[in-house]
């Protein structure tokens, strides 16, 4: 047992892999500075020098193409974005270049490129720093999209991404950075494309992505007190989406809620719901409930932001409704509060 944070796990994954393979390098805006992308790249510059850990101009599009070029020439780049929103400047590279480069060369070239992008709430980030966008990435054939939830996943999936010969986008929720968990010291990888049951249960299944897993587990813990047994399934990888464990769970429970860390409409929750409906046809006892962001741009003011984002309480109320329960008394329960974690400036 060695408890470290998700952030430390990410850092350790890169450190160990970079020690193993000198062709791996990490780059991106702010990567080598003292803040190190919320701490995740801290220490890498000192250890590997600026040849392998470097800052870049504010040129997301070119820096993404740059990664592709280095990857087809046998390097293994890790490109880091402190917010996924900035990656929108490079969608052309993702959709028109990276995702199909190998295909277009008849399999001659490989594209071992990792793109890490942070999502999540801060100190009033507003509408330009709050998107998730992973459903768009998942929609495009040729990209793998991974959303680690636990510290153990963070290390294992990042190592798997680095070792993968294909482009992998890792989506990391910044609130997860502080999650603490048991993480093996030695390098290991967790297969891309495997779901994970975060909590076993039998009355209802919650499929959650990224941070929403933390909220879902919390909701499950609270509901347990009134005798409701919730199973929380984390797909971890959304492209390719392996739905086996999800389907098995829903077949068992008969009820399902999907809690996605994104807008609901045309999001990941739609694809997962469709798969479940199809494969559990006739088995589902109630329609699937989808929980996600309000379908609005994200506002700045905290009280509006709180309405924008769902949380454990949203999930609890939704479970109660689905199972026909009276709303339970939640006074005394302590839920995750960002405010308790930090105050500004960003």
């Amino acid at each position, binding site marked *: 047992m060695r408890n470290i944070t998700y952030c430390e796990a990410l850092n350790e994954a890169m450190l160990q892999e970079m020690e193993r393979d000198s062709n791996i390098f990490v780059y991106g*805006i*702010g990567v080598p*500075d*003292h*803040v190190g992308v919320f701490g995740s790249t801290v220490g890498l510059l000192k250890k590997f020098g600026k040849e392998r850990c470097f*800052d*870049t*101009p*504010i*040129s*997301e*599009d*070119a820096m993404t193409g740059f990664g592709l070029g280095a990857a087809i020439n046998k390097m293994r780049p890790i490109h880091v974005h402190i917010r996924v*929103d*900035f990656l929108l*400047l490079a969608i052309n590279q993702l959709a028109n270049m990276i995702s199909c480069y190998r295909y277009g060369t008849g399999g001659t070239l490989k594209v071992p490129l990792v793109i890490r992008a942070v999502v999540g709430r*801060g*100190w*009033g*980030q*507003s*509408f*330009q*720093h709050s998107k998730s966008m992973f459903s768009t990435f998942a929609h495009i054939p040729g990209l793998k999209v991974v959303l680690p939830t636990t510290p153990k996943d963070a290390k294992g999936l990042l190592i798997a991404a680095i070792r993968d010969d294909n482009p992998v986008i890792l989506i990391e929720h910044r609130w997860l950075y502080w999650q603490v968990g048991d993480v093996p010291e030695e390098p290991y990888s967790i297969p891309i494309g495997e779901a994970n049951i975060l909590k076993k249960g039998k009355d209802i299944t919650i499929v959650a992505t990224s941070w929403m897993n933390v909220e879902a587990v919390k909701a499950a813990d609270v509901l347990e007190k009134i005798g409701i047994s919730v199973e929380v399934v984390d797909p971890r990888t959304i492209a390719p989406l392996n739905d086996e464990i999800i389907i098995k769970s829903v077949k068992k429970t008969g009820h399902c809620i999907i809690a996605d860390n994104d807008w609901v409409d045309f999001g990941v929750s739609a694809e997962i719901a469709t798969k479940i409906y199809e494969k559990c046809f006739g088995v589902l006892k109630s329609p699937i409930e989808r929980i996600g962001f*309000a*379908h*609005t*741009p994200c*506002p*700045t*003011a*905290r*009280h*509006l932001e709180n*309405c*924008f984002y769902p949380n454990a309480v949203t999930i609890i109320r939704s479970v109660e409704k689905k199972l026909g329960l009276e709303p339970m008394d939640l006074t005394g329960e302590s839920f995750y509060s960002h*405010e308790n974690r930090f*105050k*500004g*400036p*960003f």
Partner: protein
Amino acid sequence: MSNLSMDIYRKLYLIRKSEEEIRRLYPENEMKTPMHMSMGEEAIVVGVCHALSHDDQVFGTYRSHALYLAKTENTDNFFAEMCGKVSSMQKGKSGSMHLCDPNRGFMGASAIVASHISVAVGAAFANLRLKNKKMVAVFFGDGAIEEGTFWESLNLACLMKIPVLFVCEDNGLAVHTSESERHGYDSITDIVGKFKCNVLKEESTDAETIYKLVLKAIKLNEENQMPCFLHLKYYRYLEHVGINEDFNIGYRSKNEYIDWAKRDPIKLQKSKLLALGYGKELEIIELQIDKKIEKSIFLAKKAPFADESELYKDIFSDNEAVI
């Protein structure tokens, strides 16, 4: 001249004082919005905005406290928005990074580096077509010129003879990264000068100098119908985001700051006016502004938050029902 100098001082003082109030109040955690402070750049925005008319338009970045106040002097809305209150035009939806006041020509601010530059060019194009004589100035940092869209926008304005003022506020930093680690050239003005563009540059912290430069830029534009690129240096006093100094971190030296602070734009303007014997008038102005700000803050604090339904409003025009 003294009227001009005094007006300029008023704006400089208004900005500095407002930000000082932010520094005082931010730790109370009522302003839940990331503060990218302007301290140090006041001469630029005041100089430029003073050369513009009320109806002229500006576009800014997430670091637009100074620009917003220089253009609008609207401290009521400023503090209301910082506190996320319903009394702000944006009702707290935008925060520090997306200030706006279109009725006073502040057309918006973007926190995606350089993304507003092309928008400003389009706005200027519309003004040209509508023949409404409104000028457009777009403010951006030395980091923004690394984004491809800056070059696209520059090319477009030069090609179409759209009279935009491109105002590059160069503080030599993008977050913690110095210019030399980001630019593959020695001089951006040398490069832009090869476009069909007027180019002017200045390192002064004297707002009046900047003001005159901008008058010149506007005149140049009238003469040759080319946009103008203004390259203006300044020193960022505080950390990239947040209200503190950060000289202890080591990516820059406090001596630089000390040098620049000697010619701090507010102090500079004040000492000029004092030398001219305007001590009394200054006192009055400062007092008025202190009051104005105090009142704005009081109103902001007192105002309620918007109803939760506000979340769903103003996404579409005339179409609130469908979201």
